[in-house]
């Protein structure tokens, strides 16, 4: 019913020279989102999480590769980082989906996992986002590992640990404290960057609203609503991130002052009194 009403309102407004605001479309999108919006939201969240997890894993390997004693491994890691940081994500998305499938290198067939079927563009999107993210995570992870006192590695090895075990058990857990804050920012970015998947016609949050604004010719209302949904996602993530950082800071001196407060984080200010205590 409301849709019909909205359509007529939209029809009337298009004939006038001034823009006729359809606030009901906006409020409806926020307070009683339909299945399409919820579906888009879900897809955005799920793609972000999977791509970020892939990015973190690749980042750890790329960081270790970059620090490897073996020259070819170092080369491989450097070329990977160089390529994915040096080319636009859109190009990577188009190349991996259209490029590979048209050239018949890989045609991205549907992937069925139990009751769930993931179509090709989503797979390609996650793949490209994850690879791209890994290149950025590599530098973050590397900085985290380098921030750990070299004496930690020595102590672990003096106790008879192999380099791999010392890295896993001793160095990486300590590096995590340094890695988590920028990792949180990366995930904040990831939530928003998934909107680029519209180039592969993946109907995530942005594309959902893009379709709606076209149907109703209400770009102002729907894009504003999209912005509110993205804000909601990043704000919730900000709360989770603050909580994780507080937990990680336990057992370290100045634990209370371990990170910027939520409000400081959201508006991009640094809490100076807090940082001095570190």
């Amino acid at each position: 019913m409301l849709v019909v009403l909205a359509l007529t309102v939209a029809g009337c407004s298009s004939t006038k020279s001034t823009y006729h605001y359809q606030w009901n479309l906006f409020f409806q999108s926020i307070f009683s989102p339909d299945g399409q919006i919820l579906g888009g939201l879900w897809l955005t969240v799920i793609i972000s999480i999977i791509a970020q997890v892939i990015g973190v894993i690749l980042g750890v390997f790329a960081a270790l590769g970059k620090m490897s004693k073996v020259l070819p491994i170092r080369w491989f890691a450097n070329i990977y980082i160089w390529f994915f940081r040096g080319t636009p994500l859109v190009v990577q998305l188009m190349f991996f989906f259209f490029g590979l499938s048209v050239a018949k290198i890989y045609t991205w067939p549907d992937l069925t996992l139990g009751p769930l079927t993931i179509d090709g563009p989503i797979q390609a999107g996650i793949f490209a986002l994850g690879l791209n993210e890994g290149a950025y995570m590599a530098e973050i992870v590397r900085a985290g590992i380098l921030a750990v006192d070299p004496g930690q590695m020595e102590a672990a090895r003096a106790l008879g640990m192999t380099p791999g075990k010392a890295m896993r058990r001793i160095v990486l857990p300590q590096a995590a404290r340094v890695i988590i804050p920028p990792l949180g920012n990366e995930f904040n970015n990831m939530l928003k960057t998934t909107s680029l998947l519209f180039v592969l016609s993946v109907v995530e949050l942005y594309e959902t609203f893009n379709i709606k604004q076209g149907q109703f010719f209400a770009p102002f209302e729907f894009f504003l609503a999209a912005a509110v949904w993205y804000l909601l996602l990043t704000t919730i993530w900000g709360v989770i991130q603050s909580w994780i950082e507080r937990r990680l800071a336990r057992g370290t001196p100045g634990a209370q002052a371990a990170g910027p407060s939520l409000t400081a984080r959201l508006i991009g200010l640094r809490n100076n009194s807090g940082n001095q205590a570190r």
Partner: protein
Amino acid sequence: MNDGDQSTNLLEAIGGAPPAESANIVEVTDIHKFFGHNEVLKGVSMTVKQREVVVVCGPSGSGKTTFIRCVNHLEKIQSGSVKVNGHLIGYREENGKLVSDKERNIAHQRREIGMVFQRFNLFPHKTALGNIIEAPIQVRGTSEDEAIEMGRKLLARVGLAHKEDAYPAQLSGGQQQRVAIARALAMRPAVMLFDEPTSALDPEMIGEVLEVMKELAREGMTMIVVSHEMGFAREVADRVVMMDEGLIIEEGTPEVFFTNPQQERTKSFLSKIL
């Protein structure tokens, strides 16, 4: 459970002194070490018998820290050999030549060698007890229950039974170093290496760490100690070694070393630190 344990016997806590497979626990033969073109060890040899305590002293830059780090292969040597408990460290013999060993084998060899660092190097993300049980569980494959029992005993005997859940950041320097000693002992090493264990400590904390080390020496642990604590050397060392410019220039029993040094360098060094 160990709060009533008044014993300070450290080796008893780890099930007695580890078995010696060789009369000479440490055999260092003519090792040379370069940093770039700079030769920091110019042919150092040392033999340490079971239950022997050797204190290495010398001015800064004399190579004494590098020397002790070569014993457990934290530093690669360019020539010579290091044997601990009869096993070559860092290298293996193939057709009469020494070749670099695999990291996995080197890690295996290091189980026999306990090391205590100047800066403690405790794992900050683990509690005092967590620090001690980490390597026995991860490296030796000791069961968690067994490791915890041994860890608690060790903590009690270095006087820190009440600190088992404390993180390193919550402990004083002296307490951290005592945990570090317990951590090294938990691997039941055949020899303990101490790299200036009291140099990073506030003066009032040096005594508590030296007490633990003296106890260990009295119980018969084989030890190499790089230190300027001459009181400690006098009291427990079997031998004092003087290094200068990458060479051992003098060694002897504490009585002879302190009362009648032969070398001018030793005399002038001792006059500065005593």
